């Protein structure tokens, strides 16, 4: 088996990026799966309460945030494609565009929190808001974490730290960011739409 074939074989057997980041991603996904299930089963015994207060949520803001995260994820896919072609500058530009979308998410979500806090809503207002605030804020923190990772990857890429042959860091950061997007794609319909 030639070295090139061996590398291709290895790439086909393992996900993009470092295996450690995937262990971390799986752990995060499991925690959110427990949260989502807890929300659904708690709702089962409080259907009227959940349906009533779900109507108070800003669904348009949630849509903007959904668009922002999907778009940022797409930009990150393009960043990975660029570095695989050895184009560091394009990779950096796509990563910066993804970060801008991340900022959009934080600003819109921050506005939502500000609105709720202004109405005197907090974790102890009722069971629905306890889940809404906990779930979305936990996800909010993951967005911030993802942005820190993407920024670190962008800085290293800017310095020429990645190449077409070695770009594990870009793929690892991208995988984490896609996880953040994936979580929101379930969270958005579950909390804002399903009733």
């Amino acid at each position: 088996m030639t070295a090139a074939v061996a590398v291709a074989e290895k790439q086909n057997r393992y996900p993009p990026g470092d295996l450690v980041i995937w262990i971390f991603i799986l752990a995060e996904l499991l925690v959110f799966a427990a949260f989502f299930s807890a929300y659904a089963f708690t709702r089962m015994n409080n259907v009227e309460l959940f349906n009533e207060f779900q109507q108070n949520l800003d669904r348009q803001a949630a849509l903007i945030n959904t668009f922002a995260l999907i778009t940022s994820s797409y930009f990150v896919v393009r960043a990975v494609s660029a570095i695989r072609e050895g184009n560091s500058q394009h990779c950096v530009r796509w990563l910066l565009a993804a970060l801008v979308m991340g900022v959009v998410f934080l600003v819109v979500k921050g506005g939502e929190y500000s609105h709720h806090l202004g109405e005197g809503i907090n974790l102890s207002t009722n069971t629905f808001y306890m889940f809404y605030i906990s779930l979305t804020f936990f996800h909010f923190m993951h967005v911030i974490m993802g942005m820190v990772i993407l920024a670190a990857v962008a800085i290293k890429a800017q310095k020429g730290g990645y190449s077409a042959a070695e770009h594990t860091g870009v793929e690892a950061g991208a995988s984490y960011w896609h996880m953040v997007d994936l979580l929101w794609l379930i969270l958005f319909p579950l909390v804002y739409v399903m009733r």
Partner: protein
Amino acid sequence: MSRQTKFGIRPCTWVYLFLMFFSFVTFMIGQAGLSGLEVALAVLILALIKGQLVGHYFMGLGSVRGIWHWPVFIWLFIPGILIGTAFYLSYSTG
């Protein structure tokens, strides 16, 4: 992911457009105030399909063979079943 289709559009771009469109559909369902078990399950299934597309095309698991091909699919399947069951029970007991 960098392959071009015959229309000159990358597969990831098609997936992106699909995700955006069906997120808007989900939003419109919410705006219309549609409710009921069938609607909830349809929205859930749509979300699971979108999640699988992210795993397959964006995370790159579609081109991975063996056990690492499946983690996102399995992750979507388990909470999907649990959430679906909870909504089913909330309607059947309510």
